[in-house]
């Protein structure tokens, strides 16, 4: 039963999404395909990344990889009122799923699942920023997920978008943060898995790293892996992150060139 929201016109209390004929056929296919559909194991989906989507923010970016579409806006550094003096700046990441982003409608009010993604993206970005240069200030990163193709893909693309937006806002950092997700399907490592591929995998492994420094800022793994497999996943993701870094750098250079000309 949907929770009653006084500020909106609520639909009927009990409502279910419609079931289409095509969906029923798709559900019957339960056999795991041995090979990946459409791309090689180590291929990631093509990334479209651009900055300057949101003119109000100090920096913004928009990332699109097939079915994952995320818009990110950065406001800051700005003064934090009502808080005691803190010599290190504060990074606040807020993630919001749009109601139409998932196959089942999400409530427009802030959800509990939003928080877990915010925590992971904040963990990815925190070591890269020079927050000690921003006392008494805060940086707000607002991430809106327009279309969602799996939580791991959201976390990875969200971190990439956020780091690009932070660079677009001119905030000093040690290096750009890139992030990549992978899934362990039987004995193979599939990079950048879609939501369906993640469900069928036995483990998923997402990392965020700073390729310029060669360090890892966030590791998130669920599922069952041996220690050696975890290390292989880490190395595979790291190699992929270097390619994503090139995409981010060229997007930023293009936007700067467009601003100057």
């Amino acid at each position, binding site marked *: 039963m949907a929770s009653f929201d006084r500020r909106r016109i609520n639909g009927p209390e009990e409502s279910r999404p419609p079931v289409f004929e095509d969906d029923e056929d798709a559900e019957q296919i339960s056999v795991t395909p041995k090979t990946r559909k459409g791309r090689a194991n180590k291929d990631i989906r093509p990334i479209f990344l651009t900055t300057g989507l949101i003119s109000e923010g100090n920096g913004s970016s928009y990332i699109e990889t097939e079915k994952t579409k995320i818009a990110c806006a950065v406001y800051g550094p700005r003064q934090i009122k009502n808080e005691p003096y803190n010599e290190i700046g504060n990074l606040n990441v807020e993630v919001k799923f749009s109601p139409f982003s998932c196959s089942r409608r999400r409530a427009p009010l802030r959800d509990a699942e939003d928080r877990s993604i915010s925590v992971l993206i904040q963990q990815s970005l925190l070591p890269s920023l020079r927050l000690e240069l921003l006392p008494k200030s805060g940086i707000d990163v607002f991430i809106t997920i327009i279309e969602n193709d799996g939580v791991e893909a959201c976390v990875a693309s969200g971190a990439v978008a956020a780091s690009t937006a932070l660079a677009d806002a001119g905030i000093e950092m040690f290096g750009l943060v890139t992030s990549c997700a992978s899934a362990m399907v039987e004995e193979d490592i599939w990079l950048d898995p879609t939501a369906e591929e993640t469900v069928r995998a036995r483990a998923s492994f997402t990392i965020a790293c700073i390729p310029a420094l060669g360090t890892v*800022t966030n590791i998130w793994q669920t599922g069952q892996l041996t220690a050696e497999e975890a290390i292989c996943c880490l190395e595979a993701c790291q190699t992929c992150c270097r390619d994503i870094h090139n995409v981010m750098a060229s997007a930023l250079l293009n936007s700067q060139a467009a601003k100057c000309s």
Partner: protein
Amino acid sequence: MTSKSEKSYIQSSLLSDAPLRADGRSLWDYRSIFLETGIIAQANGSARVNVGGTEIVAACKLEVEDVESIDGIDGGRIFCAVSCSLSAYPHLSSAAIDDIQYDLSQLLNSTLGHSSLRPSNLSILPHKRSWLLNLDCIVISDVGNIYDVLFMAARAALWDTHVPITRAIEYRAPQRTSGDAMDESGLDTRQAAQAADFELKDYWTEGDILDGRDRWPVCITLNLISSKHFLDADPREDAAVPLRLLLIFSCPNSQKPLLQGTRLIGSGEIAPSEFKSLVEAGQKYAMALTKTLHAKLQSDSLQQ
């Protein structure tokens, strides 16, 4: 609140050639671990763990769930919730405590609720009814190393859990004796021929042991400082060394340990080569911890 000089003092003593900790432990010692199971009579399984002051109570309650409902899974499922008592964090606002509760619940859920750890005896009527295992943990006090203690308590409660034995029953239309129309009941024609319901076989026994006892994982929190790591931080060490790597290992008997979860928490970064050595070290600690806990849980269950 720890001052900068106190943090620097703790860091330099940990990094020195002969590392020193406030209570004289070595870098890889846990504080004393107290573990009891079966403390809550009404729960299907319960445990209390106290590690140097950090105390968590965990209890399992089984309820019947309809597989066709939105969250139901054929074969049963586990749902974990952690709540922090207000006395555990007296200096934090209730919003901050809510956040901590939520993060701990998420970590437990994503690890213990994963299909690779699902016990095989949680089904009642295949495709119709199954057990939903609610694992609730309460953090009574937190003086460091909350993640390790949380998993120890959850694991012990699951170890102690017994699943009531059920029996499927089906309705059969009674045999019609010829020429006796009075015995026929109007309801006969509407009853299903398949198993439609279940009953508890025996009220007095606790039931079967929950399957997958030796697969439940332990969490090892490696606090990272420079190129060293140490275990079981107390609150001051926690404040001085913010970066931690959580490795959640499942060590089933006579098999290789498996990583069921990994998280990096705190402001800081690690080099990939470091990750390799940390995982190997974590594996060793996990096997030792599992062995110790196993011995204690075995002796507890024999006593009951």
